[in-house]
């Protein structure tokens, strides 16, 4: 391969006529719309998945591991049998896994920002947030994939959602939408922090309490009062309740509304902070 590289690298002689032809100023197309630019960056994210498929490991193997581990670890003790526990656990473990993998957004942004290609994007006359939205669109695909993997594993193990196909699809849609909104916190950290490692560190610090101190694994009634208070305001608890209710076929509109409001708040706050950092970088 290196032989061909050198060959085509040296054989080239810039020719005034062929170069001149591509330099001739044609009509410039109008600037792309915000949506079109965002979708183009989303396409870039998909191309990266195509070229580096290993990065899908964390949306396939990791969720499978989580589901198997917690079902068989706690199932017998907490609900009598793993299959019974699974009816309670699966929506929660799906939320946990997907929310956990949102942190790779920050890592990815942090890795990319150091490269020259970011400078080029930032000199383009396009809607400024589209670069970031593109990342998150690619990630939404990953979240959907992780949710699907967990659902399939759950069904194989004996998970039987009462909400049927519609309920499960609505639940996954809500989860992916919330994760998209929540990920703006990671784009912010990705731009704010100096290294990938510090992004990972902060992510763990935020994600472990958020996912474990919730109603994913056990009923909050068994916890001390101060912990119940935290679990009660933890957005992940509300998300889990909403997803559970949808999968169970009895949508809890109050919880769903809570999730949508906190998602919107996350976009407004962390989206604004992300763009502030992006423009200053």
């Amino acid at each position: 391969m290196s032989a061909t590289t050198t060959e085509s690298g040296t054989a080239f002689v810039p020719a005034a006529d062929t170069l001149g032809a591509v330099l001739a100023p044609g009509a410039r197309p109008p600037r792309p719309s915000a949506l079109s630019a965002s979708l183009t960056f989303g396409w870039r994210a998909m191309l990266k998945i195509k070229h580096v498929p290993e990065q899908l490991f964390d949306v396939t193997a990791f969720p499978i591991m989580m589901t198997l581990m917690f079902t068989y670890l706690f199932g017998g003790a907490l609900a009598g049998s793993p299959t019974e526990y699974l009816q309670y656990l699966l929506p929660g473990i799906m939320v946990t896994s997907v929310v956990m993998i949102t942190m790779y957004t920050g890592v990815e942004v942090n890795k990319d920002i150091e490269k020259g290609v970011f400078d080029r994007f930032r000199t383009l006359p396009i809607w400024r947030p589209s670069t970031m939205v593109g990342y998150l669109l690619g990630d939404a695909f990953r979240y959907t994939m992780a949710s699907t993997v967990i659902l399939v594993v759950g069904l194989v193990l004996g998970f039987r959602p009462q909400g049927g196909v519609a309920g499960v699809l609505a639940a996954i849609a809500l989860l992916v939408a919330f994760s998209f909104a929540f990920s703006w916190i990671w784009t912010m950290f990705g731009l704010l922090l100096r290294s990938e490692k510090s992004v990972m560190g902060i992510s763990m610090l935020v994600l472990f309490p958020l996912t474990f101190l919730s109603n994913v694994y056990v009923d909050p009634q068994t916890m001390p009062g101060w912990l119940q208070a935290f679990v009660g305001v933890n957005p992940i608890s509300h998300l889990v309740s909403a997803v559970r209710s949808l999968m169970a076929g009895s949508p809890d509109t109050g919880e769903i509304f809570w999730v949508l409001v906190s998602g919107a708040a996350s976009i407004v706050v962390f989206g604004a902070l992300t763009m502030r950092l992006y423009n200053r970088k």
Partner: protein
Amino acid sequence: MRDRTTDLAIEASGLVKIFGENRAVDGLDLTVRAGTVYGVLGPNGAGKTTAVKMLATLLRPDGGEARVFGHDVLREADAVRGRVSLTGQYASVDEEMTGMENLVLLGRLLGHKKPAAKDRAMALLDAFGLTEAAGRQVKTYSGGMRRRLDIAASILNTPDLLFLDEPTTGLDPRSRNQVWDIIRIVVAHGTTVLLTTQYLEEADRLAGRIAVVDHGRVIAEGTPGELKSSVGSGSVHVRLRDAAQRPEAERVLARELNTQVHLEADPVALTTRVPGEDADAGAERAARALAALAASGIVVDDFSLGQPSLDEVFLALTNHPATDQNTQEEAA
């Protein structure tokens, strides 16, 4: 200067950028006429890249102001972005994507529909000799190919002003010549080029005017010829037979020419500037200095009288050499 406002690609005055304690750019003034190649020459850390980033709307200046084709880089950043493009010091292309994908992505972001973006990408790959490599990931490209793809990406929509930040750093001589040829063709088609470089030869070869930058400010500005004549009429290089005679030779030359003599790394070589209004006066003085060396019994193996190089210009202006850091190793 006639037609001041319409004619200028860049007008910057008093630009300042501070990173913590470091005043990376410290009161930089720059005026670049449209349709020319303008060289910004300076050693590593002189503030060249920072200055380019401010002009290309990537960094907010902490002081001063700059206009690109009359548009303020802060208040009218979007208008500026519509007319410039930047090839950064480190290739501004996506390593994990193929050459084709890189160009199609940019074409789409510049508003081309997918078929048009593909056509444009193919035409560019062909013009830059990259057709064969179109389907390969950029990380498999050689340095020269990567740089060509980078420039191709920069002219996807032919810009009015192209920033080239050290476009040949780390390239082998043949790739460097290719980049020089490309730059000449680009300028011939009406694009203004702002080129930063630490290679004096490069600025001399390509640029119509040069600003020499050191510690974030312009310390000299003019055509390559003007810069050279501000230093003197030329320089004389002398090689001795015997290294032991060098201190004596240094003393004689300094006395005869009344200038500072530079001792080369080669223990038998000396270089000195020849003061004088023009080349003839300089040649005469140099001849007399050589005669004085012979009269002192110093054996000269070889000597040459030449125009001062920009290296010497830099040395004369700053009292320190231009390339004092291991930048080549770093880039390679």
